[in-house]
């Protein structure tokens, strides 16, 4: 176990996004989805992007993951410029993307197996991360036997088991009911505090953004650009109770106003 450095010295990198442009289509019918986005996510930082639907926040995540090609600009993760997808950037998707033909344990094991880790080491990794997301008892279940929240917990474990440098999360709790959502947020914060991975998290839920983030990046839509970056100085560990605090409410109001102005502009 100690040889794995599961929590002592996890890999973590910064993300540098510089004048990124994303344009769909060509000529007259071209749509400008992202218009010169620049920002930087610190190593070990929990950064959340909020914005209205269609503002290109998910697209930005796909660009960082290398799943889509940017039209212009550069994206760097650690010391590497992004050109294609790779296991150094883990991602948790909005929909359920567990491999249905693999059990929970096999899903979590997938990344380490691709990297050629020996079976014993893989088992340690799987045990560790399933315990981390509280699903040790479900190791041999198939994804179809799990609830939505459990599936996303496995997806988080699967991404982390691969020891990525950054964790990209695209509205991972968007499809869950509010009860499950809260417990997932709590779980994510705990896991993040244990691993200190750099996290870039996309949501349209302002409460979720402030609760989770070190810094909230507010985006406006069509074309997507950054309106403001807001540092969240509420001390950690945080619980849902902070939604009552004046500093939280003030921040929420500021973000709401930023998003509302955006509505007026269009």
């Amino acid at each position, binding site marked *: 176990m100690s040889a794995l450095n599961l929590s002592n010295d996890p890999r973590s990198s910064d993300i540098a996004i510089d004048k990124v442009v994303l344009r769909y289509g060509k000529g007259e019918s071209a749509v400008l989805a992202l218009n010169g986005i620049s920002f930087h996510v610190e190593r070990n930082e929990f950064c959340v992007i909020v914005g209205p639907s269609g503002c290109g926040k998910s697209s930005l995540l*796909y660009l960082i*993951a*290398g*799943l889509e090609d940017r039209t212009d600009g550069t994206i760097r993760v650690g010391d590497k410029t992004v050109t294609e*997808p*790779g*296991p150094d*950037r*883990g*991602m948790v*998707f*909005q*929909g359920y*993307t567990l*491999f*249905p*033909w*693999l059990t929970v344990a096999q899903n979590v094991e*997938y*990344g380490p197996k*691709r*990297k050629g880790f020996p079976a014993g080491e893989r088992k340690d990794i799987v045990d560790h991360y399933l315990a981390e997301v509280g699903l040790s008892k479900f190791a041999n279940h*198939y*994804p*179809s036997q799990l609830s939505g929240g459990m599936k996303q917990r496995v*997806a988080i474990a*699967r*991404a982390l088991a*691969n020891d*990525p440098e950054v964790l*990209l999360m695209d509205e991972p709790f968007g499809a869950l009911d509010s009860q499950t959502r809260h417990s997932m947020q709590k779980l994510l914060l705990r896991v993040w505090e244990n691993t200190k991975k750099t996290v870039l998290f996309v949501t349209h839920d302002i409460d979720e953004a402030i609760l989770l983030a070190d810094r909230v990046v507010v985006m406006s839509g069509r074309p997507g650009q950054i309106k403001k970056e807001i540092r969240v100085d509420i001390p950690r560990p945080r619980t849902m109770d902070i939604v009552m605090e004046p500093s939280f409410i003030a921040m929420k109001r500021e973000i709401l106003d930023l998003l509302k102005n955006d509505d007026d502009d269009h």
Partner: protein
Amino acid sequence: MPKPVPDAAGVEKTVSDQSLFKTVTTPFRTIPKSLAISVSILVWVLVIAGWFALTYSGAVKEMFLPKPEAVLATMASMAADGSLWEHMLASVQVVLIGFIVSSIVAVPLGLMMGTYRIVQAFLDPLVNFIRYLPVTSFVPLFILWIGIGIEQRVAVIIFGIFFQQLVMIADSARSVPRDLVNAAYTLGTRRIETVFHIVLPATLPNVMDVLRVTMGWAWTYLVVAELVAARSGLGYISLKAMRGFQVDVIFMAIALIGILGLVTDQIFRLVRRVLAPWAH
């Protein structure tokens, strides 16, 4: 007032007559398993009883519809002299060869077709043209080209099912969710591995269903091929029996094909359950 009567067999049996009526007339409602089995048996009881009624009442002449026991007797005598097994084996052999050859090529090619647009663009125009040609119209051509041996019958089966398999497998490969593939990429899967690492297992339950359905079609094309040109097989003995007015033999051949179909169908269901235990 009907009141629920508890039954040793379980809760489902506690329904009164009135609520049972409601259960069976409610769309998509599951029915008690014992009832499902009973009605499944009932349909055969009705068919066979109808058969008895038609033949014994004299409503249909025995020349057109043999008595059930006549068919059984024919089956027994042909089984005894070994000719039954010989013809059955001949048919099974042709179906299996045709089906396996077709599937071995259609599964990987269909997956490639559904995964890579370039393969689809290349094959689609040809496949969709051939797919609509009636196989029977090619039988004379096949006889001219390859004669009336087993190869001809195998060719008819392959021609009949290959292009259908290709299209259906490509369709299910195309419907693999993009984010499932994206997730695989972010976990270190390389592009070239996608077809067999992700698309194949993701579509496996569908592929098994396609194979099961096309296996049934293979039997159809087999009989077509055997009716035209063959010296053995269940289709061949039917044709020969027609010339000699042996209706009992025709009925026996039909029944055997049905039973063989039923058996292969069950085998496919079993294999699917073993290969794809996650999908029920």
